[in-house]
């Protein structure tokens, strides 16, 4: 069983960092993992560097920074809010049309006694221009996904070229 010196441990850590591992957590996990393999498999008077370079190669396909990339992907995966189509369009309706509907309801509520249903043309006009027409456009897009859906790309390419490890 090989006993690693502090200098050798430092050498491994520096090499891991130089190979593109920036997440401290991953650096120390890899360091410990590599140290265990060396301690368990290298003979007492074995060549440390030669053995280290032979095992570090088994940790990656192209280079060690793949592990860092994978870490970033997995860490960010759940941080994005993913909406389905219904939720997306509901949000769009809410953002674009909601304020007009709310304003109209508020106006009617405040002026109900004096105006009843005699709503001024400004209110109707704004609602039609800024709420009704966008509603219709969104409705058409929502109901005809095969023709107009901007959410479904015509051609899906995996431009990252990243492959997960397993």
């Amino acid at each position: 069983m090989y006993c690693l010196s502090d200098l050798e441990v430092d050498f491994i850590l520096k090499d891991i960092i130089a190979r593109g591992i920036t997440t401290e957590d991953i650096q120390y996990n890899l360091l410990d993992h590599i140290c265990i393999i060396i301690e368990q498999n290298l003979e007492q008077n074995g060549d440390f560097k030669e053995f280290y370079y032979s095992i570090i190669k088994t940790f990656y396909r192209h280079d060690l920074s793949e592990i860092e990339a994978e870490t970033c992907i997995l860490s960010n995966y759940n941080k994005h809010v993913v909406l389905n189509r219904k939720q997306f369009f509901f949000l769009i309706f809410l953002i674009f049309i909601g304020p007009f509907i709310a304003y109209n309801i508020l106006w009617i509520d405040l002026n109900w006694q004096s105006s009843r249903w005699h709503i001024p043309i400004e209110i109707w006009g704004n609602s039609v221009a800024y709420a009704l027409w966008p509603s219709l456009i969104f409705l058409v897009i929502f109901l005809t996904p095969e023709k107009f859906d901007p959410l479904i790309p015509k051609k899906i390419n995996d431009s990252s070229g990243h492959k997960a490890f397993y």
Partner: protein
Amino acid sequence: MTYSTELLKGTLKTIILKLLADNKKMYGYEITQKVKELTSDKIQLTEGALYPTLHALEADKLVTTEIEYIGKRMRKYYRLSQEGKIKTKEKVKELSNFMESMVSLLDIKPKKF
């Protein structure tokens, strides 16, 4: 025979969570060895898959960690959090149901022991 990448995709978190549920606390190298041992070398977790997944589990607060210093280096032990224990049950149940569905879908007869 080792299993293909496609088969292992999506099961890694469940494997790690279940191992942590059964073993209280474990560190990375120990997890890889335990998986090898339990599956007779059929599943070999790579470091490139294991550590990013452990990092993600920690970020999701499904595991808690404990540091132990061994000379100049440190060893990080992972332990299930309360949330992780609940998630483990869900994940194991989900995978179990999925396997049952696959058995009936592919018309596989389970081996009799």
